[in-house]
């Protein structure tokens, strides 16, 4: 087993709002290993993005993170601004969902790339520019020298996301966090970006965290998967285990609600009944209980702990019986 790169212990993220606190992430324990791709799935509001924003020190002003996050053994949660400038973009980088808005429309693509090397590596603009041309070529952008003097709006969405990736990898960080990297892109471009990420991680050995609500994206790229619900980890497994032998009712619901081409057109898409819980309330029992077909009395009263099922498979659920018809691996 590869060595651990990032260790998260007891992470909690809370937002102070006018209507009281909102608990976005609770009791999160996980690790990212060197060079692996860790997928994190969940629906909107499951805390998957906030987890990584907290680790990057990018929470909104009303957000607070507690617990411990160690990168290479060194505590990095809630570092002061100065220390963050040496950590972000240097040892860990992050790219975001919408490459249309994630780049500054007022600055050239080149400026937004070279500034990273100028700041972290103390390079001159000239040296940095030369390096950036190489970086753009490595994400398969042709005519890179000319494109550096262009503005983001002159790029397509897929190209912008390539630029974001190239920029993030300029400093060869140990960890690349991708928050919904393909959600805003159309399907063919999505496949290209995923292939690119796979290629780059093999080349640089960068560990990648892939945050998404799209199980198809996870299946293509991830080694391990964590399923989040209501700010909690409900299941964690190797990707093949999860798709073949999931053990949490919520995971089952997620997998069933993926549209499939091999089903007749008339088949209704399965959905998970109910709606995600209000994160301002903290129920005593399992947060998924109101929507769960397998729920029993204990689920209402007691929060199920995250328990190992062996074989690196963990889940948080009281139900012991068999789940519904198991899907084939996607």
């Amino acid at each position: 087993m590869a060595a651990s790169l990032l260790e998260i212990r007891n992470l909690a993220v809370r937002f102070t709002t006018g209507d009281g606190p909102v608990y976005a992430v609770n009791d999160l324990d996980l690790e990212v290993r060197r060079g692996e791709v860790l997928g994190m799935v969940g629906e909107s509001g499951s805390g998957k993005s906030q987890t990584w924003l907290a680790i990057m020190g990018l929470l909104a002003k009303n957000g607070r993170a507690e617990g411990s996050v160690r990168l290479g053994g060194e505590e990095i949660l809630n570092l002061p601004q100065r220390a963050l400038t040496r950590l972000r973009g240097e040892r860990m980088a992050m790219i975001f969902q919408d490459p249309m808005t994630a780049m500054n429309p007022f600055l050239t693509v080149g400026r937004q790339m070279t500034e990273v090397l100028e700041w972290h590596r103390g390079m001159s603009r000239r040296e940095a520019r030369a390096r950036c041309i190489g970086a753009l070529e490595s994400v398969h952008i042709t005519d890179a020298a000319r494109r550096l003097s262009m503005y983001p709006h002159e790029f397509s969405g897929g190209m912008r996301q390539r630029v974001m990736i190239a920029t993030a990898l300029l400093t060869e960080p140990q960890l690349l966090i991708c928050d919904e990297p393909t959600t805003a892109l159309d399907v063919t471009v999505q496949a290209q970006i995923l292939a690119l990420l796979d290629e780059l991680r093999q080349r640089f050995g960068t560990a990648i965290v892939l945050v998404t609500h799209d199980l198809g994206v996870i299946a293509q790229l991830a080694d391990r998967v964590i399923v989040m619900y209501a700010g909690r980890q409900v299941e964690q497994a190797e990707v093949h285990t999860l798709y073949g032998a999931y053990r949490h009712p919520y995971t089952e619901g997620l997998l069933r609600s993926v549209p499939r081409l091999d089903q007749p057109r008339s088949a209704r898409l399965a959905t998970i009944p109910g709606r995600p819980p209000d994160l301002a309330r903290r129920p005593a029992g399992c947060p998924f209980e109101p929507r769960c077909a397998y729920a029993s009395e204990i689920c209402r009263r007691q929060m199920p702990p995250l328990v190992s099922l062996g074989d690196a498979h963990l889940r948080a659920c009281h139900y012991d019986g068999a789940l519904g018809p198991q899907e084939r691996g996607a």
Partner: protein
Amino acid sequence: MIRLVLRRVLAAIPTLLVIITLSFFMLRAAPGGPFTEARRLPPQVLANLERMYHLNEPVWEQYGRYLTHILRGDFGPSYVYRSTTVNALIEQGLPVDLTIGGLALALALLIGMPLGILAALRQNTAWDYVSMAGAMAGISVPTFVVAPLMILLLAVKAHWLPAGSWSNGAPDHLVLPVLALALPLIAYVARIMRGSMVEVLNSPYIRTARAKGLPERTVILRHALKPALMPLISFLGPAVVNTLTGSIVVEEIFGLPGIGRFFVDGALNRDYTLVMGVTILYAMLIIAFNLIADLLYGVLDPRARQQ
């Protein structure tokens, strides 16, 4: 760029024509005339005056005559300030307005912009609340309240500064009118700057800049400042004209010989040519500064440049 300017200048011609026509006929439609004063003129004198200024001709003829004069840049004689022309009055008054207005604008930008930016960076702190409350007061309290108060306190009671008059633009005479004109403008600039800065700082590309590890100083100066200036520019286009010309109240209170006074006098006395001249001047300034604002947009925003 040149094509844009050319197109806009051409588009300004019909706009100006509409403004000229509307104000020409509205003025004629107003009751009374330039020579119907409290002191009745003998009919013969009145007839002579009207003939001299062509007011006895049919209104369409007068309109045509006026247009041909304007094309030559001649706004005609003033009816009220006799023996002088509207052009001469404007030449006399405009420098006063430009001086006061220009200084007030510079002051507003110099104080208002940093004030707004700091308020945005220290959002929801005492600094933010105090400066924004001050700005709200600056916007809400009208000039005709602030200006007399300033005269009362700083001129009449403290004797620090002169209470009014132009004195050929002597610096100490400028202080109070410039301050009076700048105060609400500072407030507007600060509020707009704060609002746009707060919005920009919450935008995804600022998050990206921070995720890259850039120090906060670079994030603000390089990534946030330029986009945050855009709403200010949209505001300044028309606001510059208002400041350069809309100092009527300030001119009255401080007894300054600017255009605003001529405009008010002209309107009250049905000085057709004077009112028309000032109206056309204002219209041209508004068109010009809106164009300048649009050009500045293009200079700052690469997306706007393309069109």
